[in-house]
């Protein structure tokens, strides 16, 4: 170790003597990160990044803040950091290419509370970002999205570290999944849940640590809540495991022009109370979500001007502006509610808005219906044999107090499926167990060091570009993330195969190259080896 330091010191000293004119010293970098005790792998990731950057003569100070509070607030609202270890989780709707590109880095989204937390601004990114929003033809849109990724690669608003692999497992003696779909959300994907077939007369027992917050679709706003709601309520479109939209309650989508989309609704299907699903329910649902200003859905409905019923099977959506993510983000997220249940909910129950309705006995047209929910303990979803998606078995979610125990319960056969990610040490042991089968799901989210361009240090693109070569990627993946991670040069990671730009070259860990890039950009090093800005 000592030897390595002296070699580096020597290197730094030699370059320092070459420097003739010196600019100001680059300010100490305030690196907002996760608390080491509870999020050790995130903290260590930032520690390894800082170590790499220090080799370039930068001063980096890790600033671990308790999560969620105040870290989330410093990250998303106050933007109180020079760089933050950004961990954005994957989710099916985030396969829509807009989410990790334009939504994150368009300069219009830099206000507190919005996604562009680094107040990043680049005219090419803004332009391409807006352009792809208006193209419905996926092939044509793809070209723009590929260019957008290239522009982001060039401007480096963040250094992408890796996207994690989540390992979950099933007990083969209790459940089978005939054709596992490699979806980014793994066993939680609706396509895999629907296939789970219990090998005994009981329901499939799924272990996890998170309970449902609510079964009211208008009040829900967490990913976990939406998964179960999507089993009870149908949507017009469902995202396929490959990231492409699949018709669900819709039988056809016709883009008439930029702002007019017609949807044919499947006929002959019914809600769990036996009443038929019709175009009235579809129109009602979109209007209702919009009128009630449901917090989560608001931004996806903003561009919907009107919903009209054309005939017994067709609904027409008029948009205020062209919006390509409409198909996945809007049609793929709004739940179709039974009009006969919801239209009088507020009046009959005396609540002030629909979000307050408990919806203890949700009536939907989805492949499962809620048999019972014992808060903090169990959620029982009974399959509906008359549903077109043909669910294989009943699902019984079992809520555990700690993640460690879920793995033990799986091994022991007290549950059939662990939805809880298994920890790396357990994964090795479980892989040997003949009775278990493990699934590795590549997330579509990723870990990155996101720069705050709104502050002085990272305003310079050349510095950001160079820093990408000063991160020990392989070491982080091997030593910190247990080998369970995939690298990506683009924000749209490889699992999102259709939209991912595979032409971008992964930056390697190469301190010499990074130093050269900095030198070419006019940076110098002082006698102590610290980085100084171009004059």
């Amino acid at each position, binding site marked *: 170790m000592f030897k390595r330091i002296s070699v580096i010191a020597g290197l730094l000293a030699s370059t320092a003597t070459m420097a003739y004119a010196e600019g100001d010293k680059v300010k100490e970098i305030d690196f907002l990160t996760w608390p080491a005790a509870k999020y050790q792998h995130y903290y260590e990731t930032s520690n390894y990044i800082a170590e790499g950057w220090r080799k370039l003569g930068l001063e980096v100070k890790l600033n671990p803040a308790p999560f969620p*509070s105040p870290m989330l607030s*410093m990250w998303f609202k106050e933007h109180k950091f020079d760089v933050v270890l950004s961990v954005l989780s994957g989710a099916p709707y985030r396969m829509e290419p807009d989410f990790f590109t334009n939504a994150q880095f368009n300069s219009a989204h830099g206000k507190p509370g919005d996604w562009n937390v680094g107040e990043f601004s680049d005219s090419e990114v803004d332009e391409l970002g807006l352009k792809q929003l208006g193209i419905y033809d996926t092939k044509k849109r793809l070209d723009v999205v590929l260019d957008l990724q290239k522009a982001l690669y060039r401007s480096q608003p963040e250094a992408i570290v890796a996207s994690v692999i989540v390992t979950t497992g099933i007990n083969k003696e209790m459940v089978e999944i005939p054709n596992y779909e490699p979806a980014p959300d793994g066993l939680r994907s609706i396509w895999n849940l629907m296939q789970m077939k219990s090998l005994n007369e*009981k329901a499939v027992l799924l272990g996890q640590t998170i309970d449902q917050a609510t079964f009211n679709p208008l009040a829900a706003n967490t990913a976990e809540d939406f998964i179960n709601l999507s089993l009870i309520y149908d949507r017009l479109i469902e995202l396929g495991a490959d990231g492409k939209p699949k018709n669900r309650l819709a039988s056809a989508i016709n883009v008439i022009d930029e702002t007019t989309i017609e949807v044919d609704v499947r006929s002959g299907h019914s809600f769990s109370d036996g009443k038929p699903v019709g175009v009235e329910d579809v129109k009602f649902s979109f209007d209702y979500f919009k009128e009630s*200003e449901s*917090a989560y859905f608001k931004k996806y409905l903003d561009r919907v001007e009107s919903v009209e019923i054309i005939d017994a099977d067709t609904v027409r959506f008029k948009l205020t502006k062209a919006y390509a993510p409409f198909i996945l983000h809007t049609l793929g997220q709004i739940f179709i509610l039974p009009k006969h249940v919801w239209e009088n909910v507020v009046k009959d129950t005396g609540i002030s808005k629909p979000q307050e309705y408990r919806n203890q006995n949700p009536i939907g047209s989805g492949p499962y219906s809620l048999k019972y929910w014992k808060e*903090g303990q169990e959620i029982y979803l009974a399959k509906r044999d008359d549903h077109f998606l043909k669910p294989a078995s009943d699902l019984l979610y079992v809520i555990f*107090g700690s993640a460690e*125990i879920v793995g033990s319960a799986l*091994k022991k056969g007290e549950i059939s499926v662990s939805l809880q990610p298994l920890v790396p040490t357990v994964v090795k042991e479980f892989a040997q167990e003949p009775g278990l089968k493990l699934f590795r799901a590549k997330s579509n989210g990723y870990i990155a060091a996101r720069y705050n361009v709104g502050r002085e240090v990272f305003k310079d693109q050349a510095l950001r570009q160079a820093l990408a070569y000063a991160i020990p990627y392989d070491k982080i993946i091997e030593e910190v993330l247990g080998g369970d991670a995939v690298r990506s040069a683009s924000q749209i990671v490889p699992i999102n195969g259709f939209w991912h730009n595979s032409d971008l070259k992964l930056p390697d860990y190469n301190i010499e190259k990074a130093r050269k890039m900095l030198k070419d950009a006019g940076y110098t090093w002082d006698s102590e080896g610290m980085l100084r800005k171009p004059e």
Partner: protein
Amino acid sequence: MGQFIFKRFWHMCITLFVMTTLMFFMFRLLPGDPTATVISPALYPKAQEALRQQFGLDKPLLEQYFVYMKNLAFFDFGISFHTTRPVSEAIQGRLLNTILLVLPSMIAAYIMGAFVGAMVAWRRGSKFETILVLVATALQSAPVFWLGMLAILYFSIQLDMFPVGHIVSPGMFPEANWDMYFSTDFLHHLALPFIVNALYQFCFPFLLMRSSMLSTIGEDYIELARMKGLRENRILYRHAMRNSLLPLATTLPMILGWAVAGSVVIETVFSWPGLGLLMVEAVGRADYPMVQASFLLIAVLTVVGTFVADMLYGLLDPRIVYN
């Protein structure tokens, strides 16, 4: 006497008021904006604003405080940030589960502690005493989650004697009614957390009883009993133990609040759907109304417990006079 009760009662009210106020401001004075955890950054800024209004978080802190206190006076603990349903409902559903785990194990721990403590003191200086005191101290210093984990590892996983957690087997009792609590399945699930909690709680009454006994044994009336020619057992149970029980009896109500707070750990380890687990979840989500209400409940239990203990003292020991 009446005046004393009134004065103690009055003190109790002030303590509770100060506690409630402290708790309210403590959570809100943490650095950073607490609403950032509740109101997801994934939401549209306008929607975030709407949610803030819904929970009253847009009002000045002092106003929020007055609203909170006013509602509290009517036993309204507010709406959970997370579930958007009344907090009191969630707590009601969980409280019974906690009581069913904590109370029996506390009582078992106290009965066991009293007897074993008495025996040990009676045989002062024996090997039996050295070993037990050592074991008890070790048990008390060991983190209870560690004890719980070990118990699960050995009894549930290795020996397959007990389930790894929960209150009943999943799917056994779809109806939320009393049947569940009268089933052998429930007892089977209760057994392991009960034993672990009882063992953990055992140390305190055990050591207390031992030292109380030691001072009793030196009393003249024990000597007198011996001189009367009474049998050893009779002296132990009728004279020594009975008179040493006083500190134990008075700590029991006091310790109740503490035990409920302690259930946080045991419930998390055993996935026991009680108040403790609810608190852990609520703290993790910064669900302040839920956290405050559960903390308040523990504070009330402790303060009321202390009050009851004070009253009990006089009742059990007629020599104590209130003035």
